């Protein structure tokens, strides 16, 4: 609102400018030695307008930032809590560029639209008061115009939606080619793929141009109506001046103000394309935010808990699993690849909701426990672990604080000879080393529950024995999915 007020003040100052100019020019036409007093009004109005425009610029920047922040925060919280439904590239694209588009939409399009709805009416009323016929011409074209533009805009909306999807697909496509470049090169297909980007770009250009040709029809309508109205006003003023039915002052004021009826509409229309792209992104962000699930209220356990799988079906199509592990106990989950071992572990780690049945933690359903607090007590080893951070230390601590002695002991126990402050990027870690480093990271916080997916895959026999010994020492309740025997104790089969 504040920014629209600033724009309205600027519009008012513009009207004063027009009256001052009209007065001084008409006087000069009549009398070559006329005074220039109205110029003081012109200069004063100019100062007011400059101030109002500058303020408006300041205000709009602050307008949309809180909305953008809140949406990005909530969307990211959902992705972290529930995982993502689309690829990493597309999700990152939506959360960065998508939200930037949304912010642009809110900070430029919305105020421009609000002004376009108010300012033309005011200026048209001033024109009508000066000369009713010009007022009618301007009012009719200004009324016809939005109808025109809305109709054309509606026609283009689906196209604009598609354009946003095309851009996202292309973002995925470039990412896909870059990420898969090693595989493409192995197959000698990388040059083809790079060449196909030319075609993809050409296809994007074509589809975007098809959209814009439709969208620009509204630009055409706007330009046509505004120039015709200006021309009509000028011609009708001229014809009436010739018969002496109108004063020159009024004619000049009307002529100066006529383009200003259309200027706010033109500014809003120029933003329209930003607007549709922003709306489209907003829809995607809101879809993402809607996936939020309520977090449980109960506190997470303070000691290694008993864990019960009660008729648990992690995914549709899997057999129900029943098992009980005592506090600090061990359980091995066995089954062929793809039988749902990983899905089961993800449910236990609080990364996914079960399809049916429940996980009970000390007798209470996992869904009722505060998810972030639960996950803070879980030590998790993915079957394809990601090492996060810059140095070995970052990968180990994951934001927690731990003394160097503790970290070194862990690395020693797992047979890793790594300097703590060495950048990970330069290390060329093998798959087995990555796995052991990730396991060390899972153990740093002394978790109450260890959830391990194939902890000894990729390992030579010596390293595997070390890993088994480290796991055996942990006080946590341990659930392992593995093909070979990693922990003592009961086993449960899936699939």
């Amino acid at each position, binding site marked *: 609102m504040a920014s629209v007020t600033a724009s309205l003040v600027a519009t008012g100052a513009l009207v004063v400018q027009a009256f001052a100019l009209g007065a001084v*020019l008409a006087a*000069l036409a009549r009398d070559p030695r006329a005074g*220039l007093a109205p*110029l003081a009004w012109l200069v004063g*109005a*100019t*100062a007011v307008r*400059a101030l109002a*425009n*500058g*303020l408006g*610029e300041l205000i709009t920047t602050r307008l949309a930032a809180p909305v953008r922040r809140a949406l990005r*925060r909530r969307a*990211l919280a959902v992705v972290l809590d529930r995982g993502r439904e689309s690829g*990493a*590239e597309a999700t*990152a694209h939506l959360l960065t560029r998508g939200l930037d588009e949304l912010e642009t939409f809110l900070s430029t399009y919305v105020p421009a639209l609000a002004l376009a709805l108010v300012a033309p009416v005011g200026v048209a009323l001033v024109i009508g008061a000066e000369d009713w016929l010009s007022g009618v011409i301007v009012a009719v074209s200004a009324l016809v115009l939005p109808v025109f533009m809305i109709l054309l805009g509606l026609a283009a909306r689906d196209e604009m939606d598609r354009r946003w999807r095309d851009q996202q697909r292309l973002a995925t*496509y*470039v*990412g*896909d080619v*870059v*990420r898969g*470049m090693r*595989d493409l*090169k*192995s*197959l000698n297909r*990388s040059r083809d793929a*790079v060449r196909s980007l030319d075609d993809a*770009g050409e296809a994007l250009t074509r589809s975007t*141009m098809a959209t814009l040709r439709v969208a620009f029809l509204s630009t055409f309508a706007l*330009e046509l109506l505004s*120039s015709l109205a*200006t*021309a009509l006003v*000028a*011609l009708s003023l*001229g014809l009436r*001046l*010739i018969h002496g039915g109108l004063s020159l002052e009024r004619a*000049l004021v009307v*002529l100066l103000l006529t*383009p200003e009826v259309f200027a706010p509409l033109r500014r809003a229309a120029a933003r329209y394309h930003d607007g549709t792209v922003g709306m489209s992104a907003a829809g995607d962000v809101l879809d993402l935010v809607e996936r939020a699930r309520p977090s449980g209220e109960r506190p997470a356990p303070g000691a290694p808990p008993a864990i019960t799988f009660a008729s648990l079906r992690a995914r549709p199509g899997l057999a129900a699993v029943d098992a009980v592990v005592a506090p600090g106990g061990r359980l091995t989950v066995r089954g062929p*690849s*793809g039988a749902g071992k*990983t899905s089961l572990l993800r449910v236990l*780690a609080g*990364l996914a909701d079960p399809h049916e049945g429940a996980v009970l933690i000390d007798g209470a359903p996992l869904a009722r426990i505060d998810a972030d607090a639960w996950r803070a007590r879980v030590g*998790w080893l993915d*079957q394809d672990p*990601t090492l*996060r951070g810059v140095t070995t230390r970052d990968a180990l601590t994951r*934001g927690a604080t731990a003394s160097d002695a503790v970290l070194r002991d862990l690395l020693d126990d797992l047979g890793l000879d790594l300097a703590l402050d060495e950048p990970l990027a330069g290390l060329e870690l093998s*798959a087995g*080393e990555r796995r052991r480093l990730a396991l060390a990271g899972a153990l740093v916080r002394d978790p109450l529950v260890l959830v391990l997916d194939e902890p000894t*895959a*990729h*390992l*030579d026999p010596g390293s595997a024995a070390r890993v088994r010994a480290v796991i055996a020492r942990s006080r946590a309740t341990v659930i392992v999915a593995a093909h070979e025997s990693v922990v003592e104790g009961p086993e449960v089969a899936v699939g």
Partner: protein
Amino acid sequence: MSVRAAMAAERRGIVRALAIGVVVALSTAGLSLTSAWLIVRAWQRPAVLSLSVPMGLVQIFALAKAATRYAERTATHRVALSVMSRVRADLAREIEPLVPAGLGPRPGEVVELALNDVDRVESLLVAVAAPLAAGTVAALVVAVVLGLLVPLAGLALAVALLVALGAGPVSARLAARAEERRDAALAALAALVDDLVRDPAAVALGEGCASALARLDEHEDALDRARRTGAWVRALTTATLTATSGLAAAAIVALSAAARAGGHLGAALVAVPALGAIAALDLVGGAAGLTGWRADRASLVRLATLRDRPVPVVEPERPRGVVPGDLVARAVGVTGRLAPTDLTASTGVLALAGPSGSGKTTLGLVLAKFLDPDAGRLTLGGVDVADLTSTSVREVVGSVGDQPHVFATSLAGNLRLARPDARDGDLREVLERVGLADLLARPGGLDAPLGGASVGLSGGERARLGLARALLGARAALVVDEPTASLDEVSAERVRASLAAYGRDHAVVLISHRPEDLAAADRVVRLTPPPPLG
């Protein structure tokens, strides 16, 4: 890629778009000038016929303005999009020789960079450069016309135009630091988001959501601070431009009055200089958009520096023809990564063993000419691999990395990358061989889409899909990096059997830790870690 080169390639389109833009701008100013003339002339109550010239001009300019605006918009966007797609394709072309051994650890950032920088070029061309160039030309024409009527008014307009055009670069200089900070904040934010969404589970279970969101807030704070500084500069620029237009109009009215008093300006033309000046200054108002030009230039420079990275493979100047045959390594080594190693890969399965960090993967990269060795000699069919192009080597030597990429296309599309003319039967057969027949039972079968980040495939399935692709490629030699690492024993046995079958008439180099794999291989080469550097 220099954007300049892409623009040079589209020069004709650019010139055309600019020419149309000048016509639009001239029509806009012309409509304003001629209606001012028409009205004051009409007020003098001449014969109606004598008004036909200004009336005709008003109509012509009005129609020309509407008609050419549409053409200008389409021409400008068309050429900007063409430049963009050229730049994007060139970017991938420059990354291609660097993969996998010469590109940094974060290809995701490269992608974000490409998209952001390339889009920046578009907005620069469409929103700033095109209207500004056309507007400036037309505004100068108006200044000349005014100069013919009232010489000092033309001069005053020229000065005001200079101020308006100068406002952009000056505010760009003022905003430069804020822009840099904003870009740094945006890049840091993008890198953070990229990192967090890559493996959300690792974040949720590692540092936790609360800590990750707190880091996001810090980045958002930095971004907001930078944006606020930028907004002050923009506010100042807008105010300056508004003031320039109003004050120029006042000055030109005063100069017109002097000319009128001196008898140099007729009554009919008295409104023309003031209205012409306002119209001309409106045309170059877009200069305010120039505040971003430094950042745009930084984008251009970043895009151009990619080619400065060292290339991991040097192609021979006079390549020799490739002859299928044994791969023979004699004391082949890579400083700090691979101790000098001998091996001969001929028909059969050769297993590469050794503790983690002994350079098995590095040797695999060298064998497929993804990386030049620092020492020793590698020959293929008796020809030094250094004398062969990497493409020709890879016609003979196929390879599968330890984490094959699953492309965002169908199952069939993923496989046909290796052999575009493969029939559906071939694809089913190769999936069967690696134990992935289950994938065919999913909805969609061969046409089932596989997600961008290999959604829906486990690590083991991904590894086998990569192997299936390589088997379909039917290279004479195949280097496979840990295909059985995340497989259960039944699936691993299936993979071993398919590699053994392939090894009957091809050479297979199998990198593995698994004792069963080594036992099943025809020969085993054990690597020892290289001495530590320095």
